[in-house]
């Protein structure tokens, strides 16, 4: 079964190791501004929310592309941009419900997450499991486990 990325804002520390590792993997430089995922920080509320491409089952970016430049990789299930076909119209950016398709600040190309060809570095470096790469049916269960940690503590305490 295919694997994809799951996020857990409750455990995200906002360290942006994922953004950094993403940029290093794709461009061999330390440059979170070029990352293909984002940690959104809402500082007033002390929130850190990881935003990754969900590689949607019915992907609006793919459907909106006039040049059919966005395709699904049959091996990894990743929704990918074929740079050779992309005309840079940015309609996919508008179509994406999560706003996670980006324009690269250096090349000005439209870029998106490609799951690092099946081994995403963001999930690998995340120190707290806030980004998890898991089988599509297992991922939600990992999040359930994480969410019950507090209940577990209370139950143990008052046993």
């Amino acid at each position, binding site marked *: 079964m295919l694997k994809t990325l799951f996020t857990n804002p409750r455990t995200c520390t906002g*360290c942006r190791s994922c953004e950094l590792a993403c940029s290093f993997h794709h461009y061999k*430089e*330390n440059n979170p501004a070029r990352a293909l995922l984002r940690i959104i920080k809402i500082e007033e509320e002390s929130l850190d929310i990881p935003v990754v491409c969900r590689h949607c089952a019915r992907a609006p970016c793919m459907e909106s592309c006039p040049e059919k430049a966005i395709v699904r990789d049959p091996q990894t299930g990743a929704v990918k941009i074929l740079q050779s076909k992309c005309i840079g119209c940015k309609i996919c950016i508008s179509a994406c419900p999560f706003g996670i398709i980006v324009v690269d600040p250096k090349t000005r190309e439209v870029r998106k997450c490609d799951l690092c060809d099946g081994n995403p570095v963001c999930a690998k470096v995340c*120190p707290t499991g806030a980004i998890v790469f898991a089988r599509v049916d297992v991922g939600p269960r990992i999040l359930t486990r994480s969410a019950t940690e507090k209940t577990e503590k209370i139950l143990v305490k008052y046993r």
Partner: protein
Amino acid sequence: MYGWAGTILRVDLDKKKIKKQPMHKEWISKFIGGAGINAKILHDETQPGIDPLDPANRLIFGAGPLTGTLAPSSARYTTTAKGPFTFAFCDSNSGGHFGPEMKFAGYDHIIFQGRAEKPLYLWIDDDSVELKDASHVWGKDVWETNKIIKEELGDLEIKIAAIGVPGEKLVRYAAVINDWARAAGWGGMGAVMGSKKLKAIAIRGTKGVQIAKPKKFEEICSRCREMIEKSPKPKTIGYYGKPWLNWLRNEIQKSNPTMNFKLPRVPPSEFHKVGLEAFEELIVKWKGCFNCPLHCGHVLASRSGKYAGLVGEGFEYNHAIDGQMMGIYDLNFVLKWTIETNRLGLDCDGPAYAIAWAMELYEKGLITKKDTDGIELTWGNQEAALRMLDKIAQRDGFGDLLAEGIQLAAKKFGRGSEKFAYHVKGGRMEIDPRTGWATALSHATSTRGADHLKGMPLSNAFGVWKGIPYEFTDDSTTEYKAEAVIFFENLNAVIDSIGLCKNDTWSQSAECPGLHEFAELLSAATGRTFTASKLLRVGERIYNVERAYNAREGLTREDDTFPEKFFTEPIETKIKLINKDIFEKLKDEYYKLRGWDVTTGSPTKIKLDELGLENFRLPIYDQ
């Protein structure tokens, strides 16, 4: 350039001129970057004897070659200036995301000089750098300033370092706060920034940091990450954060600054109120600086009592101390204190230590309600502490005196209050020097006033380095302690100069990356050759620059000492108190090993020449 961004930014606030200079090759090989090059610049560009709040002082921001890179905990940058309350060399290090952003925009160092006519802020958008009017945010707190500037520049992801009202009003321990809740707290860098009428620095960087050998670098970084993950750190500091150190000091080492050092530690009957279990109750989640696998910060929530519902980022070892210094054993209050000092733009300890000093005077009857504007400064009075904090921030009434820091305040106030102002070179003590000999020696000789982050050995790393047995907990003999302090002073100077954090390196744990890994990381990142011993030599050079700066300011061996209390009043530790004779002998040994003059404590001509620091000699040596 690889590793380094390659550019130093010079901002002349008098003339509103901005100049970009290329990074000097010679500086790199001699001082690496960050705190090292900062120290060199401060020494070269300021005259001895200047008032720290005069336009002639410099305020230097510096990031290291590893800042912003894949190296674990690469978040650090250093601010350097002549210190407003130590009147000596001073630097202050901070994490968050600001330092890396400086590098991403293409700058290793930013030097501020002069004083602006009207309040300004600096806006760095990669290559485009401009000074913008800040009159509309002058008088606003740090968080409002952040919000307004981000909205004005139209990008919520810009990274900002700013000062609050205390910085503007030159409260001597005002902090520079970056990324909402990370502080360059020690030393009063916020006051220096305020004296220059510089409200904030806003940065957006998209250029990134380039690496000479990416594949190799990635490999070493993963190895370092693994080392940290396998070390004891994630279970201690990674879980409890710095309050873990508070527990360690109080319960294991049996010394912990409490009630202005009136008590040797928090009484065991009270400790459960501020201990690890009480702290655990507050945890909502963990919070980390840029690229940190350890995340020693937290988001905390107060769930009961008068601050119930309060949520915010917190808190450090220091904050925990602050509460107990004022006799307040309540972590909910500590959270409130943390949030307020971050919002206001104050170092958390500055006001706490000043208020604690005043509380002791109040108890002894040296001051009364008449002096304190009607506030009852009794031990443990939370409301009084918070009201006084606001007064300090505004320099209002009695707060104006406390805003001077304990050394100056005691001098101004007189009436025997000096006896209760516990400091070294104006710097307050966050760890009781009576803990042990290395602790005492490092606190006394630190270049920026009593301080545990310059040279206090915190781990058995020394053993790793030289094979000399050194246990964290056994600080009760003087054997090897001078050597240990020197090693850690040099090591910490290296860590602050390359841009990594002390928490997950040799500075605090021998299992974490150390000099050998630094050398590998730097070599792969920059394409130059570094070795562990070469790095340690750089550390020594940097520390000598700091000491030479202080010698030029007229500081001598006499200043490397403690208030009388620490020589005479015993506590529960093994060494009980600092025996003056042993202490002076230990100092002799330290200066000798350092190659410094034993009578003055200043770096000798021979030592400076040997380190290639010919220009750092005191004029007297050239006669």
